[in-house]
């Protein structure tokens, strides 16, 4: 019940296309859902996050869609650029500190 399932494991998208990464969770006590972006040789960095009281959050080209009833959330990257090539992790957390991480998606944007 503590798991966060992330798919796909890897994704190749043409430059200018839309990248979509999906996550699902079981624990209804989760109330904060961040996405972290990690470039090779770097630590993860917070990209965007959402709370379950909204269905969508947009920051620039990055959008989180949240479906509370289905216990699913997804990251959409519009107009994907080669600089977006990285590993993306979804995560979930409740009232305590511990982030429950998805397995990660390696995204490659082809020029």
């Amino acid at each position: 019940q503590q798991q966060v399932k992330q798919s796909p494991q890897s994704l190749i998208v043409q430059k200018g296309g839309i990248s979509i990464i999906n996550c699902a969770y079981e624990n209804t006590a989760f109330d904060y859902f961040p996405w972290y972006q990690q470039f090779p040789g770097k630590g993860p960095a917070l990209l965007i996050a959402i709370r379950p009281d909204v269905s969508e959050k947009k920051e620039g080209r990055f959008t989180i869609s949240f479906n509370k009833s289905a216990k699913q959330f997804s990251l959409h990257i519009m107009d994907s650029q080669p600089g977006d090539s990285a590993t993306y992790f979804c995560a979930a957390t409740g009232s305590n500190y511990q982030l429950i991480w998805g397995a990660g998606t390696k995204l490659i944007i082809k020029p």
Partner: protein
Amino acid sequence: DAMVIQNPRYQVTQFGKPVTLSCSQTLNHNVMYWYQQKSSQAPKLLFHYYDKDFNNEADTPDNFQSRRPNTSFCFLDIRSPGLGDAAMYLCATSRTLQGFNEQFFGPGTRLTVL
């Protein structure tokens, strides 16, 4: 400008030879975390400090220890590294322990065990 600094960036040690990794932060955050990240996997939390209070995750091996002498610094000691301990070690900080607080990660130390 750097907020979470880790030294060294690359560390090579021999099987069984103790090693210490260091982390410092300029954010003045109360919480410091150590994660282990193996290739193509998500980070795995080893332990954290809230101020001086230490919390070990249940499945963290005894081989791993940590010290936090002051707010800014935290150390990860691996007493007898095995081949399975080769990984990236990430230090992170957050303002409080509440889950919605962003965790700020350092660049990591890649540990190689020969």
